C-alpha cells in the first residue's frame, strides 16, 4: 500500500527525518511510535504532501507520489488527520463533514447548483458523524464543540474523503476513555476497507490495534515488527516505552 524509501527531511541544521524506509501493507493497521520530536508528524506531512521530501521516494499502491501535489494525493486515496486539531471552526459539524465528502464525490467546480440540495453529500456526512459519535452535534458550530469532540471531528474529516490509506496523527489525544474506546472500535470496523498508519502515544490503543509497529527515534526507524517483538525490544524500552509499560 505505502512504501517509503530513504525519506529525508531537514529543518535547517536539524535532521528531522533521516533516510526512513517503511512499508505499510494492504489492509494492515501499522503503528508508528516514538519519542516526542522523533519526526512522526513530519513523515505524515511528507506522505500527505504538505511538506516536500528533501530526498527519498514515496510509493503509494505502486505509484510514485513524491512530487505530486497534495490534492492529487487525496484523489489517489490518501487522507490524514492532524495532531493539532485543524477543522473548519465556523462551519457546523455537518458542513465540515459534507465539505470533506464533496472533495471526493464529483467535481467541486460547480458554480450554480445549490450544494444544500445535494442529499447524498449530507447523508454520507451524517453517516460519518454517526461513526465518530457526533450525530447529536450536527448543527453545532465546530468551534463550540468540547475539545474531545473536536478531536473526533478531526478523525471524521479524514475518513470522509473515503481514503484507501488514512494517516492518523494521535487521534486519541485529548479524548476521554469512552471517546477513545469509540475511536478504537471505529478503527477496528474500518480496517476491512481502509489501511491505517497510526501515530499514537496511548499504548493501550496501540497494542490493541496494531498488527505491526515501527519505532522512530531521532528521525530513524530503530525497530519494526510485531507488537510482542517491539514490547520485548530493549532499545525501544529505553528510548520510548519505559519498563513499566513494556511489562504491562
Amino acid at each position: 500500500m505505502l512504501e517509503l524509501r530513504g525519506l529525508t527531511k531537514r529543518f535547517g541544521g536539524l535532521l528531522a527525518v533521516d533516510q526512513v524506509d517503511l512499508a505499510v501493507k494492504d489492509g494492515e493497521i501499522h503503528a508508528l511510535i516514538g519519542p516526542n520530536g522523533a519526526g512522526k508528524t513530519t513523515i505524515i506531512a511528507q506522505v500527505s504532501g504538505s511538506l516536500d521530501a528533501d530526498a527519498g521516494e514515496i510509493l503509494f499502491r505502486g505509484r510514485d507520489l513524491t512530487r505530486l501535489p497534495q490534492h492529487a494525493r487525496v484523489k489517489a486515496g490518501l487522507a490524514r488527520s492532524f495532531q493539532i486539531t485543524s477543522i473548519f471552526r465556523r462551519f457546523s459539524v455537518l458542513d465540515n463533514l459534507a465539505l470533506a465528502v464533496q472533495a471526493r464525490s464529483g467535481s467541486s467546480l460547480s458554480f450554480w447548483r445549490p450544494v444544500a440540495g445535494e442529499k447524498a453529500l449530507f447523508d454520507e456526512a451524517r453517516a460519518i458523524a454517526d461513526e465518530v459519535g457526533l450525530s447529536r452535534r450536527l448543527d453545532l458550530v465546530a468551534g463550540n464543540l468540547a475539545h474531545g469532540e473536536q478531536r473526533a471531528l478531526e478523525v471524521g474529516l479524514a475518513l470522509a474523503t473515503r481514503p484507501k490509506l488514512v494517516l492518523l496523527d494521535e487521534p486519541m489525544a485529548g479524548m476521554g476513555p469512552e471517546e477513545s474506546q469509540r475511536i478504537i472500535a471505529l478503527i477496528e470496523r474500518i480496517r476491512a476497507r481502509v489501511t491505517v498508519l497510526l501515530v499514537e502515544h496511548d499504548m493501550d490503543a496501540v497494542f490493541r490495534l496494531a498488527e505491526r509497529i515501527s519505532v522512530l527515534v531521532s528521525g530513524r526507524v530503530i525497530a519494526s515488527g510485531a507488537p510482542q517483538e517491539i514490547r520485548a525490544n530493549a532499545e525501544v524500552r529505553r528510548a520510548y516505552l519505559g519498563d513499566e509499560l513494556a511489562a504491562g
Partner: protein
Amino acid sequence: MKKTIFVLGLAVAFPLVMNALDQAFYIGFGARVLIYAMAAASLNLVLGYGGMVSFGHAAFFGAGAYVTGILAVEGLRSAWIAWPAAVAVAAAAALVIGALSLRTRGVYFIMITLAFAQMMYYVFVSLKAYGGDDGLSLPGRSTLGFGLELGDELTWYYVVLVLLAAVLYLLHRIVHSRFGRVIEAIRENETRAAATGYPVYGYKLACFVISGAIAGLAGALIANQSSYVGPGLLHWVQSGTLMIMVILGGVGRFWGAPIGAAVLLTLEETLSGSEALGQYALHWQLPVGVVLLVIVLYAPQGIAGLIAGRRRA
C-alpha cells in the same frame, strides 16, 4: 425571499417616487448607488467569502471603465461589444494580478494588490493619448438597441438595476454552490482545505477572477454614468471606498455590499451638500469615519448583521 422582494420593490419604486416628488435629480444618484453596490459586491466575494483582503479592487473597476471609455472615443459605443470587452479585460487583469499576489498571504497580499492597482493608476495617468491626468470625456452613453435610449435617466436606472439584480443572483448561486462552500472553507482553514483535497491556489484564483470580472462590469457602467473616466477610478482611495462599503454593510454578508454602498453614498450626498453644516460640509468624511468606527467596534457583522441579528432575537 421576502427580503429580496422587499429590496427589489424599493429599488424599482425609487425613481418613480423621486419623479413624483419632483426630485428627478436623485434618479442619477440612485443609479450610482446601484453601480457601486455591484463593485462592492464583487469585492465582498473575495474579501468576505474568500477571506482575501484585496486592497486593489479599483484596478478592475477602473480597467472596465477605461475599456468602455477608450472604445467609445474610438467610435465603438455598442454596449454589446464594449461591456463584454470591459468584463474580459478586467478578468484578464485579475488573472494576472491574482496569479502573482495569491502566492502571498496576509499583509503581503494586501500590499501587493495595492501595489498592482497603483501601478495601473500611474499607467493611466501617463496615458496622454487618452487624457492622462485629466481623464477622458465620453461622447455619450453606450448604445443598447431595442429602442432603449440609455441617455434617458429613467431607462438608464432600470438597465443598471437589471444588471445588478442579475449579478447578485449570480453571486447568490455561486456562494451557495459547491464552489462557494470550498471558497469559504479555504477562508476558514486553508491547511485543512488543502489536506481535504482541494487545490487551494486554483480555487482562490478562480474566485479572484470572477470578482474582477464583475468589478469590470461595474466599471463599464460607472464610465457611462457620468460619461467620463479618469485615473481617479483606479486610485487606492477608490479601493478603500469599496472596502469601507463592504465593512459598513457587513463582510461576508450577502446583502452587505448593497447596503454599504447605499449607506455610504447617502451619507456622502447628504453631508457634503448639507447647508446646515455650512463650510464644514467639506469634511463630510469625519462623521462617516465615526459611523465606521462604531460599526467596527459594536457591529463587526456590519449593518446587514445588525438587521439579521435583530430578526433572530
